[in-house]
């Protein structure tokens, strides 16, 4: 089943790389010390800034792609029965997998995500990433932040929102990568994200 067209794969690769780079340099900034650092502070600042700009551009690809391509349908939340569906999926992750049960929401071309995937992708892609990108630009161009939008102390708030969203995205990424080993074989979803073809159960 061909699920991931080229632009998604390209975007996703860039996105994952930039996110990783931003998380690592971000941690270096947050936990800087006077000892010998992984990356010196000024280098980390420069890399983090570059990564942030790059991520904004790659997010733009995603944003446009999800407006103009049919991929957008996968990001439309249906509210009816959402909680129940999410619970079913959750139950599967907590118990079903171990009993060798079938995926409750098998992947189809119409429905590429299960309910939990869908909700978490929407939250991350349409709330967490925009928040971190906007606050990131606010920090990159403090003049704008200070004089026009916020008070001087607005920077603090911007910074805190930035850090909290960064943390949420990092946790998402850990869980996301792990759950991606729950395909028909542990590596199959990753292969799918490279080749574009999803291999379903059986």
């Amino acid at each position, binding site marked *: 089943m061909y699920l991931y067209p080229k632009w998604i794969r390209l975007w996703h690769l860039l996105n994952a790389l930039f996110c990783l780079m931003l998380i690592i340099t971000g941690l270096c900034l947050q936990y*800087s010390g006077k000892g010998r650092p992984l990356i010196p502070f000024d280098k980390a*600042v420069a890399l983090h800034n570059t990564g942030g700009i790059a991520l904004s551009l790659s997010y733009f690809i995603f944003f446009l792609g999800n407006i103009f391509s049919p991929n957008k349908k996968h990001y439309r939340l249906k509210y009816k029965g959402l909680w129940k569906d999410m619970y079913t999926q959750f139950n599967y992750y907590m118990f079903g997998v171990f009993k060798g049960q079938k995926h409750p929401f098998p992947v189809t071309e119409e429905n590429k995500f299960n309910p939990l995937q869908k909700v978490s992708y929407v939250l991350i892609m349409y709330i967490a990433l925009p928040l971190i990108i906007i606050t990131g630009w606010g920090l990159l161009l403090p003049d704008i932040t200070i004089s026009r939008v*916020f008070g001087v*102390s*607005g920077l603090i708030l911007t910074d805190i929102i930035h850090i909290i969203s960064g943390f949420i995205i990092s946790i998402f990424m850990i869980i996301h990568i792990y759950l991606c080993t729950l395909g028909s074989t542990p590596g199959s979803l990753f292969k799918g994200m490279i080749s574009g073809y999803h291999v379903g159960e059986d």
Partner: protein
Amino acid sequence: MPENKHYFFLIFLVPVLFLSGYLPAVSQEDQNSNDQETEWVSEFYEENEQCFKCHGEAKYSLYDEFSEREVHKLMCESRVINRDKYYISNHKSFSCLDCHDGGYQDFPHPVELRTEEHYACLDCHGYDENYAQYHFEEIEEEYVQSIHAELEEEGFNCWKCHNPHTYHISIRNTTNLHETIAYDNNICLDCHSNFNRFQLLTERDEINIIERHDWLPNQALHFGNVRCIECHTQVNDSILVAHLLLPIEQAVQRCVECHSRDSRLLTTLYKFEAKKQRTRAGFWNGAVLKESYVIGANRNLYLNIISITIFFLTIAGILAHLFFRMKAKSNQTNS
């Protein structure tokens, strides 16, 4: 479906409301700093007016008895003294003539007064218990070793930074840290961005401050949030404002001096607050959080605990899941 979409977009409103609701409250805090000005009137007010009538304005008037008319002249800018600033300065209760020779009451001022000797700070404040908290003697010791002290022969002294007519303590009882930072930096910029004053003391060419700090990113932000002396003086624990200005090779250039948990800002700019508010080793919030967010230095204890807990719970959850998966798999292959 379509109406559901609206609900979804409400989620975006949450951060927006959060931002807009919080921000006005924050900026209002900054504003009520100079509200508590009391109506204080110097007992020398009238006496000082005889000097202020010329030195208080950008122009002064002379009465020419010969032609019987007033002539107006410009007062040289460096000799204009701002009344308002004078009367909130540390030495506001002084009469001009406490520090200046009575001969100045005559105009034109006599030539021999041009070289009048001024009191030094320690002449009045040295070894005085009333001022013990300021540690004047130690400040003097530091100043003597500072690079500017080499310019004493050219006329450098404490008054050059502590303008006799406007200096007031700021960091000691600051209510608005940004104003204090600007105030303190202007002390330096008075010479370092004003070549007229600079060249009185040295033969050197002009030093372009902006260019010489090109290596510092977000320069405007930095200069608005740290003082020159943070980087240019030696840290001293016992006095509030370090006065030992170091040779240029020893100025702070490493970012982590400030952007780290044991930030030097704690022993300089935030010294006063930090002592009060340092809670646990390395964690201090209120001191800095109120005014600035210094990446690397600010760590909120609670956020930190929460995030580390969530992080390890996530990892533990994944490991447990993995464990059960492997167990299920080996059961499967066994049977």
